[in-house]
C-alpha cells in the first residue's frame, strides 16, 4: 500500500513519517514512535484509554487516522511532566488520591482531565463526572479519580485542596 507523508508536533517535538493511509493514530504513536503510554481498550471509541490531546481537544486516537492528524499538535501522557521531570498536578493528584489501580485507563484519564481543567479550571463534582464520562475505569469506581482531579485543580489554581465531606 502506498504511503503518505505526515508531519506533526508530538509532545513539543516535530515528527515526520511515511504512513499507510489507513494507519490509526494510536498505532502510529505506540508502534512507530514507541509512545506506549497511550493504550487501546475497546477499539470502538467507548473506553477512552487511547485519549490524547490534539490541537487542544480530547480525541480518541483509536478512531482517528494519522493522516487526519497531519499538521496537528499532539500531547500524550509522555509529554505531561515538565522537562526537568516535575510531575504535572494531575499525575501527582492521581497518586495522592489513589485515583488508579491497574493503571491501564490512567493515561487516557489524565489526558482527558487535563483538557477538562483547561476548559473549566474549577469544575464541580458533577462537571468532573460528566467531563470524564467518555473514559471508562474498571478498577476504581471513579470516586478517587474525581478527588484526584479536584486535587489537581486546587494545585493548578494555587488553592489548598480540601476533601469534600461525604
Amino acid at each position, binding site marked *: 500500500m502506498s504511503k503518505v507523508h505526515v508531519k506533526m508536533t508530538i509532545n513539543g517535538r516535530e515528527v515526520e513519517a511515511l504512513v499507510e493511509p489507513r494507519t490509526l493514530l494510536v498505532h502510529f504513536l505506540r*508502534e512507530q514512535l514507541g*509512545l506506549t503510554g497511550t493504550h487501546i481498550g475497546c477499539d*470502538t471509541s467507548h473506553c477512552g484509554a487511547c485519549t490524547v490531546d490534539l490541537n487542544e481537544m480530547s480525541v480518541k486516537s483509536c478512531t482517528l487516522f494519522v493522516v487526519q492528524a497531519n499538521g496537528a499538535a499532539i500531547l*500524550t501522557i509522555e509529554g*505531561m511532566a515538565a522537562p526537568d521531570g516535575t510531575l504535572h498536578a494531575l499525575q501527582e493528584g492521581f497518586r*495522592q488520591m489513589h485515583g488508579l489501580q*491497574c493503571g491501564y485507563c490512567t493515561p487516557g484519564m489524565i489526558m482527558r482531565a487535563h483538557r477538562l481543567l483547561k476548559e473549566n479550571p474549577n469544575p464541580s463534582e458533577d462537571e*468532573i463526572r460528566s467531563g470524564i464520562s*467518555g473514559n*471508562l475505569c474498571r478498577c476504581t469506581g471513579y470516586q478517587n479519580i474525581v478527588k484526584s482531579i479536584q486535587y489537581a485543580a486546587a494545585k493548578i489554581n494555587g488553592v489548598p485542596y480540601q476533601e469534600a465531606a461525604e
Partner: protein
Amino acid sequence: MNDIAPTQAERAEKLQGLGCKRKRVEDIRFTQGRGNYVDDVKLPGMLFGDFVRSSHAHARIKSIDTSKALALPGVKAVLTAADLKPLKLHYMPTLAGDVAAVLADEKVLFQNQEIAFVVAEDRYIAADAIELVEVEYEALPVVVDPFQAMAPDAPILRDDIKDKMNGAHGPRKHYNHIFNWQVGDKQATDEVFKAAEVTTKDLFVYQRTHPAPLETCQCVASMDKVKGELTVWGTFQAPHVVRTVVSILSGIAEHKVHVIAPDIGGGFGNKVGVYPGYVCAIVASIVLGVPVKWVEDRMENLSTTSFARDYHMATELAATKEGKILAMRVHMLADHGAFDACANPSKLPAGFVNICTGSYDIPVAHLEVDGVYTNKATGGVAYRCSLRVTEGIYAIERAIEVLAKKLGMDSVDLRMKNLIKAEQFPYRSALGWEYDSGNYHVALQKALDAVGYPALRVEQKARQEAFRRGETRELMGIGVCFFTEIVGAGPSRHCDILGVGMFDSAEIRVHPTGSIVARMGTKSQGQAHETTYAQIIATELGIPADDITIEEGDTDTAPYGLGTYGSRSTPVAGAATAMAARKIRAKAQMIAAHLLEVSEYDLEWDVDRFTVKGLPEKFKTMKEIAWAAHNNLPPGLEPGLEAVNYYDPPNMTYPFGAYFCVMDIDIDTGVAKTRRFYALDDCGTRINPMIIEGQVHGGLTEAFAIAMGQEISYDAQGNVMGASFMDFFLPTAVETPKWETDFTVTPSPHHPIGAKGVGESPNVGGVPCFSNAVNDAFAFLDAGHIQMPHDGWRLWTVAERLGLHA
C-alpha cells in the same frame, strides 16, 4: 548517647508498615505512561496473529480454504486444526478436567469460536487475511438454554465425548451433561422440609456476564531455536501455572520455558485460564522461529475468553413461624458453555458455591449442582468473586428476603435471629466449611446505626402510601445484604490446580546495606502488591517499605506460586511473606546476640531493632545486622540474610460484611437511582486502608454493573448479543453511585498477621444488595422475585406487568 533517639512510634511510622495508608509505588510509572503491558512488548521481527472465527453457534465445518489468505503479501502462515492435529494440540486440557478446542476440529460449538490462526507481518495485514479465509459450514440445531440442553431429544453438542458417560467428576446423566455435584445431607434436609411450618422456593437466575478488564487478553511468544528456549509474555494472573501447562503441552522442559507476566491492565478472573490465542501464538513462534504477538480485540474478549455466572438456582428455605431457619435446599443448573473450562480447584466442579448457607446458622442443608453444555462461549471464571461464591451468596441473600416477606418480618430482624453467633466460631457449616472467625451481630448493628435503618423504613412506608395516593411515581427500595466470603484458596487438601496444591510463596533477600528485594508467586493486576507486601515486610523486619522492592510475574526469578485470583494473595502469599520474614528475623536475632555479646534469649524485638532486655540503649538495628550478616557472624552460622517460604494455608479465610443500599426507581422510565450505598467490610487485619477502600470502591462498581445492567445474552440462533462496550454495560462516572465505606476488624486466627483478603467481598456482597434494593422497592406490590440485570427497560417492564402505567 540516645538523648534524641526517636520514639518507638516515630520509628514505626517511618517504616510505613502494616496499617499505613502508604501511597502506591506502582503509580509513579503508571501516571507517566511508563507501565509495561503486554502489547508494549516489541521484539525484532515480531509477527502478528489473529483469528478467523465462526459465524455460527453450532455447525459442521465442511471446508476451510486458506489459499487466498496465504497468497496475500505479508502473510506468513495460516494454522488450522489440521496443522495442530499431528502435534496433538488441536485440543487442550482445561482446569476443570475437560478438553477445549484450540482450533475448531470438524465442528464449531459457539459463535466466534477459533477456526484458523493467521500470522502476518502486522496487525492490519492479519486483519485483511482473515477476510480471505473461506469457511464452508453446515448449520446444526443450536441450544442456548441450559434447561433445553438436558432434554431427551436435544442436539448432541460434544461429538468428541458423546459416548463417554463418565466425566471428570463422575457419571454423566445425558450427552450434554457435564457433572452432578452434591454436598450436604439430602435425606435429613428433605425430612425437615416435609415437616416445616414455612417454606420458600424460588428460581434465582444469575445471568451470564463477563469480567471485561480494560486490557484484553494478549501474549507474545518467542521461541529461540538455537537455545531451545521459549519465552512467553502474557496477561497471566497465574504465570507459574501457565509455565507448567505450556511445558506439558509443548514438550519443552519447564526450565526452558520462561513465562513473564508484566504489568496487567485488570484481570477480575478473565486472565486465569489458558486460551487458544496463547497456544496458537506459541505454536506459530515454534514453527516460524520468530516472535508472534496475539492481542484480542474487545469483541473477541467479551464473546470468547471466559464468561462468568450463568447459574440457575432453585433455592428453598424451611423455617419456623418465628423465623428460625431450619434447612436450606438448593439445586443449581450451571451453564458452562461448549467446553467445561471453568476455573475452579480440580476437585470442586462448582468452586466454593457450597458457601451458600451464607452467614446463617442453618442446621442442615443440601446442595446439588448439575453442569451442562450449551452452544455458548466457554470459560466460567470467578468474576471478582472467589470461585462461585457470589452465586451462592446471591441465592441465600435473596432467599432471606423472600422468607422475611412470607413471615411478615423485617429482613434485618430475620438476619439478626439467624446469624452465626460470635461464640460459635470456629463454625462448621452444614455444607462442610469451617468458618475461621466472625463477629456478625456487631458488624450488622454498626451498619444499622450508620445508615439509620429504622428511619429509612419509616420513610419508605410514607412513600409507599404517597405512591398509592398517586402523589409520586417513584418507588423507594432498601437493599440489605450480610455476606460471608470464602477466600484464600487454599489448603492443598481441598484445592489443587492440575494436581499442583494451591500454596503460595515468598522469597526475601536482605542486601548488605539493609535494603530488600522480595519475590512472590502471585501477580498483581492492579491490587498494588508492590506497595502492600512491602508493608508486611517493613513491619516484620523493621526496614522502611521504601527500601523494599517487590517483584512478581517472572517465573525465572519468583518462587513457584499459584497466582492472584479468588482474593488469595493476602491470605496465602501474604502469609508466606510474613513467615519468610520471620525466618530472617530469627537469624537476625542470632547475629544481634553475637554482636551484642549476649544470649539471644536476652534480646527483644523493638520495631526496627533487637534490644537487650532492660537496657534499651543496647541494641542493634536490622540495618546493622544486615551488614554483619555479610561479614561478622557467630561461628558456624552461614552468611547472608534471606529466606523463602511456601505457605500451605491451614484453612480458608472468611471475610464478611454488611451492606445497605437506598434506591429510588422511576416507574415511568424504569431508571433506578442509588441514593446511598454503605459498605461495612471486615477483612481482618488491614494492611493498607487506602488500598482497601479503593478495592471496595472498585468491587462495588462492578457489583453495581452486574446487578443493574450487565449481561452477555444470546439469541435463539446462538448469536452473542452483547459483545461490545456499546451493548455490554460498563458504568461511567456519571451512573456510578457514591460509596461510603466502613469496617470492623476480626483478625483471622490462623493467618500469621490476621489478614483475610478484601478484593472480592464488595462484588459478593454488592450484587445481592443492589438486587435486594430493587426487589424491595417492588415487594409491597407483590411483584415476586425480579431477575437481574435490573436495567431501565427491565424495570419498566416490571412496572408494566404490575399495571403501574395504567
